[in-house]
């Protein structure tokens, strides 16, 4: 039996201080490979995961931020960022990775995957899911 469910991954941790961000990304890619309907939300310190300009060479650990660029190829193109979390951290959408996908229903036009939303809008997005996984 195969059934597609709506999965929401809630990311709330900064990228390198703990392993949560990397583990989340791995599970997201696995879920997408099983052709589930995947959405991502970045709130609180999770917004730091997709900050642009990450360079971990001096720490000697893997910079996994380029991997987010692969999400579009896995049809993961619903990526929500809470505006209130960005504001509290002095960030705007210009400080984030530019994540896009090619829309097969629109002659493969390149479109933004990232949507900055308010807390109120997030309430509805979370309400629409079948499964919510928190990292």
């Amino acid at each position, binding site marked *: 039996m195969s059934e597609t469910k709506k999965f929401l991954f809630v990311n709330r*941790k*900064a*990228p*390198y*201080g*703990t392993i949560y961000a990397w583990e989340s990304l791995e599970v997201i890619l696995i879920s997408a490979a099983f052709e589930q309907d995947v959405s991502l939300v970045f709130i*609180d*310190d999770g917004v*730091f995961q997709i*900050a*642009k*300009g*990450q*360079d*971990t*060479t*001096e*720490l000697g*650990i893997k*910079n996994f*931020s380029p991997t987010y660029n692969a999400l579009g190829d896995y049809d993961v193109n619903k990526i929500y960022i809470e505006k209130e979390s960005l504001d*509290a*951290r*002095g960030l705007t959408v210009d400080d984030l990775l530019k994540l896009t996908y090619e829309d097969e229903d629109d002659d493969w036009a390149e479109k933004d995957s990232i949507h900055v939303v308010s807390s109120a809008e997030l309430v509805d997005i979370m309400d629409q899911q079948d499964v919510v996984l928190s990292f």
Partner: protein
Amino acid sequence: MPMLHTVNKSPFERGALESCIRLAIKGSSVLLIEDGVYGASRGTAASNMVENAMKDLDFYVLGSDLKARGVDENRLIDGITVIDYSGFVKLAVENDKVQAWL
């Protein structure tokens, strides 16, 4: 006696930086490392607290941890000194004691 305080948690997630600032004796040094470096940016919900604390405390931030997280040095609060690992060692040696706020 002044000492070195290290803070490795984001000020937006935990109260480590706030507690450090509240309890560090005047003239002490505060070094932001790992996720603690997010506390060094200006224009955030935590920056007023740090700016006020800078009247009594010297603030440092580890450059490698900033770089890893994509925090550009020109976003930092004025007066915070960026140091490298040997600077970290120097601070640890210069101070009698080190307290880690985890």
